[in-house]
């Protein structure tokens, strides 16, 4: 158990295996008797140690942010922060006569207490509340990340944070920026849910260590770790739309310090579903093969890993009958197609110094190639992206552990080659080629005067070959001004390069003419935020309340304007104002040992200048409610879950210039989405049965003029709600 090393909370800051140190100490009773065989556990992790004959313990790879739980039968349990620079002396007090059960049962989703950022950790148990399917759906039981519907044909689910598109969130896989560039829209679907061990959701501009792209937040995904995962993990999934999935994870121990893992996923959606009978598939047919293999070395001082991830995916949608192999430009049916392949080599290497525990360095890298081929109707798209990324991080202290710093340098090479052919006389017909070469340096200073205060001040400078120098300052502060209350504040600048064609793939599926007026400029924003976390005790149970407010202001934004005309999509740099204000309040409370309830209210005021008017961003509910009720018996023998989302009305793009019968209401109606799931655990795993959208709510007429897809009024891009109705799924998980 002791060797099952490091699940890193620090991974959100890109620091894999850094800041992990060994804690030693003794556990005694009040009358100075050593307590032999008392347990020391890291809160929320399945790791710990037991004191020996002298009451001493040693626990390796502890993070400063960890909490240690000391327990001994007949004594009161104590939870303490680790001390690294000297042995800890822990004194446990005799407990009451009644020996209360010591349960260290981490919540499945919680705010990371010690983090300077508002950081929510979603564990595997939380992810299993919704069995399907990939990263885009992993947030369905989480209030901070919204899942939305992209369009009526491509079937892509999108995420949003603070009411802004997911492309403004830096999504990394174990600290390496991963879902970005051309992949920013579809990338979430290539991270299978069963591969994920945990997800960190950081709200607000993130740490400078990971780059300048976290404009509204950071999401870091930790995959199953070879050294701690089950030897075999098999999962099947089948749903009423005909989607079939098979996932297999396998851990291969090689030697004491070497471990390896294979993660495999294959899925197919072969059935054509058209519940609204408009002649178009509600979700496209898809098939995907996805494979990841990595090797990990964990030594006393050196840690390294190297891995590959390859996948291929095809989708075919549009009018019924359009097949995977049909040719878009000649097909009689209106088709939609998107095929993509990616190959990636990634790795990390890091060093810690046992006699200088505050010092460490690490280097992470990734090389990848991805291509795309597809289109909609007669529009054809081809794109390739080649990326090389490296990030070197050095960490140490200045004088004492009150002053810590991280510094380093990064390099990004990102080459794009895209072509778009509208096959119409006035349509967009261009190639877009660019290569970004961005070396950068960064420094981040952490001031930790005591356990209640953390201040993180960071800055980075990047030298972009196309857009000049980016200077990115970020400041984060945390103050636990009361044992139960913590306030956090953050401010930071962010940049990203937009990829207008892929980010608008929903507009391909319309008769809108794509007007590209922009001279490509980076998007630049400032994000500021304030949050308050309260951990109260009501009737001896923990009530947790999180309230946060974030303000994002765009200095420049690439605006995708559907308001100018219902026949056009106008792409241009922001002229005027664009900002987003988001407020969220969330409370969670265990009503009993078995019932946990979480509720949230969200308010978004996102205004952007489109068609010369500062107005609400389309397809955005300004008000939303969220409720999740979970029931679980001991050891999850029985589990039941229900998630309710209420979406308030959304503004729809201006369609007043369309013929009368094709005009849309200025606003969508409000609606509810309800998902449920029941699972039964066994010694070998579990079986589950669930339903999504069980109220069977559907957007009526999601496609404008579906009878004439090649005509001038056709538009499948104006989607605000679910296209497909109720879906029932079942499957099992087998762990050996």
């Amino acid at each position, binding site marked *: 158990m002791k060797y099952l090393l490091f699940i890193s909370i620090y991974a959100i800051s890109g620091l894999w295996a850094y800041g992990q140190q060994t804690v030693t100490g003794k556990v005694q009773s009040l009358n100075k008797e050593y307590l*032999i*065989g008392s*347990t020391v556990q890291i809160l929320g992790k399945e790791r710990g140690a*037991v004191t020996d*004959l002298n009451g001493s313990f040693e626990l390796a790879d502890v993070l400063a942010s960890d909490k240690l739980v000391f327990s001994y*039968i007949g004594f009161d349990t104590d939870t303490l922060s680790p001390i690294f620079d000297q042995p800890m002396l822990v004194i446990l007090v005799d407990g009451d006569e009644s*020996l209360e059960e010591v349960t260290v049962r981490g919540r499945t989703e919680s705010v990371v207490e010690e983090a300077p950022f508002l950081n929510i950790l979603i564990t595997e148990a939380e992810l299993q509340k919704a069995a399907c399917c990939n990263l885009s759906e992993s947030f369905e039981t989480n209030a901070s990340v919204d899942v939305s519907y992209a369009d009526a044909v491509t079937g892509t689910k999108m995420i949003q944070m603070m009411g802004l598109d997911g492309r403004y969130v830096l999504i990394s896989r174990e600290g390496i920026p991963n879902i970005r560039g051309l992949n920013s829209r579809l990338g979430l679907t290539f991270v299978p849910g069963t591969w994920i061990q945990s997800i960190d959701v950081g709200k607000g501009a993130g740490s400078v260590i990971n780059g300048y792209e976290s404009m509204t937040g950071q999401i870091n995904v930790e995959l199953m770790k070879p050294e701690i995962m089950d030897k075999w993990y098999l999962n099947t999934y089948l749903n009423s739309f005909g989607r079939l999935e098979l996932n297999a994870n396998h851990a291969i121990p090689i030697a004491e310090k070497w471990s390896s893992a294979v993660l495999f996923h294959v899925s197919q959606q072969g059935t054509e579903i058209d519940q609204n009978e408009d002649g178009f598939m509600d979700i496209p047919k898809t098939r995907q093969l996805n494979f990841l293999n990595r090797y990990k070395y964990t030594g006393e001082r050196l840690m390294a890993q190297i891995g590959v991830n390859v996948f291929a995916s095809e989708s075919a949608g549009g009018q019924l009958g359009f097949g995977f192999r049909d040719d878009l430009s000649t097909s009689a049916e209106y088709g939609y197609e998107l095929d993509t392949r990616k190959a990636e080599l990634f790795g990390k290497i890091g060093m810690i110094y046992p006699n200088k525990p505050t010092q460490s360095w690490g280097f992470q890298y990734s090389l990848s190639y991805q291509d795309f081929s597809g289109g909609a109707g007669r529009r054809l798209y081809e794109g390739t992206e080649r990326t090389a990324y490296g990030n070197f991080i050095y960490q140490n202290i200045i004088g004492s552990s009150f002053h810590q710093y991280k510094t380093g340098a990064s390099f990004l090479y990102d080459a794009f080659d895209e072509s778009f052919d509208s096959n119409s006389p006035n349509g967009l017909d261009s190639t877009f080629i660019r290569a970004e070469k961005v070396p950068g340096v960064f420094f981040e200073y952490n001031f930790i005067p005591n356990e209640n205060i953390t201040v993180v001040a960071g800055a980075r400078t990047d030298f972009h070959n196309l857009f000049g120098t980016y200077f990115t300052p970020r400041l984060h502060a945390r103050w636990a001004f009361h044992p139960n209350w913590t306030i956090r504040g953050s401010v930071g600048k962010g940049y990203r390069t937009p990829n207008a064609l892929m980010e608008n793939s929903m507009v391909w599926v319309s008769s809108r003419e794509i007007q590209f007026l922009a001279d490509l400029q980076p998007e630049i924003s400032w994000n500021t935020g304030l949050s308050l976390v309260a951990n109260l005790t009501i009737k001896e149970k923990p009530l947790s309340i999180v309230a946060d407010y974030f303000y994002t202001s765009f200095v420049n934004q690439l605006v995708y304007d559907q308001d100018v005309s219902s026949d056009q999509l106008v792409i241009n740099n922001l002229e005027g104002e664009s900002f987003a204000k988001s407020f969220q309040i969330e409370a969670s409370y265990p009503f009993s040992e078995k019932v946990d309830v979480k509720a949230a209210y969200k308010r978004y005021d996102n205004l952007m200048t489109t068609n010369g008017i500062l107005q609400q961003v389309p397809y955005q509910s300004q008000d939303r409610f969220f409720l999740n009720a979970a029931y679980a018996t001991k*050891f999850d023998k029985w589990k039941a879950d229900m998630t309710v989302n209420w979406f308030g009305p959304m503004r729809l793009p201006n369609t007043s210039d369309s013929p009368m019968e094709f005009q849309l209401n200025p606003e969508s109606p409000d609606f509810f989405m309800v998902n449920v799931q029941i699972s039964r655990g066994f010694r070998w795993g579990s079986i589950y049965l669930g339903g999504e959208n*069980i109220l069977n709510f559907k957007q009526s007429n999601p496609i404008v003029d579906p009878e004439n897809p090649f005509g001038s009024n056709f538009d499948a891009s104006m989607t605000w709600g679910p296209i497909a109705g*109720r879906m029932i799924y079942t499957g099992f998980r087998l762990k050996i």
Partner: protein
Amino acid sequence: MKKLLLSLFVFTLGFAAQAQVKNIGIQTSAICEMCKERLEKDLTFEKGVKSVNLDLETKVLNIAYINGKTNPDVLRKRVTMVGYNADSLKRNPAAYEKLDPCCKDGAHIDDKTDQIKNRL
């Protein structure tokens, strides 16, 4: 769908209530929190078992089970298969070998008692 689930739930409850629930205490050789966790988890998923609780002070594993679905002999046998003695039944040696070091003989309380005795 909701009605169906509800009726299924009520049906299950009704069924469970009809069956006779019996309690048994099995003297085990469990010594620490980890033993407790392992035994309780394993027995929770044993057929016919309603609830499990190990009292670490007395090392007695209290099980509520449905009479007819399982019986004390089966439950004791299962405890030995997890790696612990159950009343007069000896633990399965292979299962014992697989236990964490802290769950093995001499890792905890016995030493502690000796230690305290020595000190006294």
